[in-house]
């Protein structure tokens, strides 16, 4: 079973072999390193850039204008902030030219806490990104979705922001990517670059199959009828685990992995809330103008009379950074026990 970093690598390989991806680039993306998370090892269209995030995004936009299909990486989402106006520009290019230009480009940047990344390797970016119209924004929570969402992203005619959670990069999936060997050691031998001298190394790619997760479609991770839990990215497996734990207490939680932040699968969320009447939104971005707050607003606007309790959010604390010391990080972003407690409290609420 692949981990998420391997899944991304295989998706990019599939993309450059079959879907017209022309350039995979960013800081340390090409040989010899193949990405600080190893997501771009062994690929044929990778190259290294100067340490210049604005240049990277500008280059991606220009490549897309010139008919190429670029995938640009910003090494950590913490360093994408100085490109915000370029992201706005990429997002408004089709609209401001009234359809004269459009930009088929993917920007990939790892997000979130959980790797003891301190103040500048722990930022989330989903809420900020949701303020930039004209982009499609996806966030995988497992290797198979990471593969499937990336295959969709590289076929898009619009800019796609691809946000893999750093903390999940090394987590193995439970479902096979079409074509990958089931044995993790065998996969590693084929596609993981060796330590030390890599100059003669070439990846031996398995015969991968096409598997695309449509952008805009969520996934019911676990069915239930007492409460609805909607999450994305790193907190999805935590919510699924919490739901499993609470089953013993008679709480039947339906867990939805949103997978796409925009355009999001409201139909799936709505149908679940109509069934349960109670909803909790969980994610690790800071809580003020959190994307979950938009979902709360829409829930209240459209489903008020179906609700049995006020919609709730568990999100990151509105603090300037994630402190490195363990108690600081744990106090800053949702932990398993926070999610369990919030789900239990919501289930117990009576109208």
């Amino acid at each position, binding site marked *: 079973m692949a981990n998420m970093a391997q899944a991304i690598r295989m998706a990019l390989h599939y993309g450059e072999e079959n879907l017209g991806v022309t350039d995979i680039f960013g800081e340390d993306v090409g040989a010899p390193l193949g990405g600080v998370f190893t997501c771009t090892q062994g690929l044929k269209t990778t190259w290294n850039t100067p340490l210049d995030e604005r240049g990277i995004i500008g*280059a991606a936009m220009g490549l897309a204008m010139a008919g190429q299909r670029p995938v640009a990486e910003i090494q950590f989402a913490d360093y994408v902030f100085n490109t915000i106006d370029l992201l706005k520009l990429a997002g408004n290019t089709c609209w401001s030219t*009234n359809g004269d230009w459009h930009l088929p480009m993917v920007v990939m940047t790892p997000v979130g806490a959980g790797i003891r990344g301190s103040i500048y390797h722990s930022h989330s970016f989903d809420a900020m990104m949701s303020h930039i119209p004209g982009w499609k924004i996806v966030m995988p929570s497992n290797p198979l979705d990471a593969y499937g969402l990336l295959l969709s992203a590289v076929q898009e005619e619009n800019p796609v922001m691809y946000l893999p959670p750093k903390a999940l990069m090394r987590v193995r999936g439970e479902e096979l990517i079409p074509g990958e060997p089931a044995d993790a050691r065998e996969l590693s031998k084929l596609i993981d670059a060796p330590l030390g001298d890599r100059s003669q190394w070439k990846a031996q790619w398995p015969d991968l199959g096409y598997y695309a997760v449509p952008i805009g479609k969520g996934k019911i991770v676990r069915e239930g009828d007492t409460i609805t839990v909607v999450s994305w990215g790193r907190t999805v497996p935590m919510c699924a685990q919490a739901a499993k734990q609470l089953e013993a207490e008679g709480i039947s939680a339906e867990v939805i992995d949103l997978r796409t932040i925009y355009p999001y699968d409201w139909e799936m969320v709505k149908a679940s809330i109509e069934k349960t009447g109670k909803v909790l939104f969980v994610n690790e971005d800071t809580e003020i103008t959190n994307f979950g707050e938009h979902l709360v607003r829409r829930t209240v606007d459209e489903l008020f009379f179906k609700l049995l309790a006020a919609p709730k959010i568990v999100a990151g604390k509105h603090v300037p950074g994630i402190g490195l010391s363990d108690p600081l990080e744990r106090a800053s972003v949702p932990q398993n026990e926070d999610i369990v407690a919030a789900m239990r409290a919501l289930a117990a609420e009576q109208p």
Partner: protein
Amino acid sequence: MSRPRLVDSAKSGPSLAPEQLVQMHDLMVKARVLEERLIQMYKQGDGYFWIGGPGEEAFNVPLGLLIKKGRGLDFDYLHFHYRQSATLLAMGEEPIGALRQMKNTATDPYSGGRNFAGHFSKAEWNLCPVTSPIEVQYGTAIGTGLAQKRYGGDAITIVTGGDAGTAEGDFASCLVWSSRPGNELPILMIVTHNKWGISTASSTQQGARSIADRGTAFGIKNKVIDGNDPVVAYRELQEAMAYVRKERKPFLLEVTVSRLYGHSSASGANFVTNEVDCLAQFEQKLEADGIMTRQAIDEVRERWTSAIAAMAKQAREEPLPAPESIWNNIFWERK
């Protein structure tokens, strides 16, 4: 490495053929009349904001005439700023588009009524969208330059910005990315130097000997030229373009120009009398050299004044975009 040098127009070598001079004059007048009409529309309430390039025609017209125009990698990619209507007209664009954009009509071919005047876009000619943020075009130019380097051929990327904008990091990005050893990019970087950033004199903000000189540190060939003389501009552009087309390496061209109506309507958009008027200067030369008579010169202006006034009238009568059109083209709508 050539050192930056100022070219004296009197020493600029042989002139161009008379018919070429007459053609350039016609386009310069057409562009000036268009900009003056846009300003008038703004002042009469037929637009919310004006920004443009009166005073840069002597450079922008030759640039437009020398561009390899078309769609795709066999043609030049253009990353312009908002003072280049004269370049577009020289490329063969109809002036009514600029008037429609000023009036923000539904028929505005560049933005459907969404953007400021001078914010052109024309994918059919590889003209990338002109933006209000300063200098971002130097970032996107990297991408088209990369694609053209890989593709080969003789088409190039041309990026234009002003002197004030070179203080932005994106200008440095373009210098760095276009000169990576073994990966040099075919980008003609143009800086039109009008000595101002809105109200701030560039001499108070930038200490480099010249902007072009910044190219020297990167091994980028560079030159400072007089952009008030269309013959000089034509010759120097030919030379710089030939280098970029053939060598597939960058060139930084700094061009001194005037800003004849201030920064934009925000600063009044009134004619200034203390800067060189490239059009008046060219007309004097044409007359002195016996290329055109004053009467012929006046007729050109009258012809374009009348034609563009009629176009402005037409644009004013066209419908504005429908409110529900705000939802169109947020994402690409497959044609």
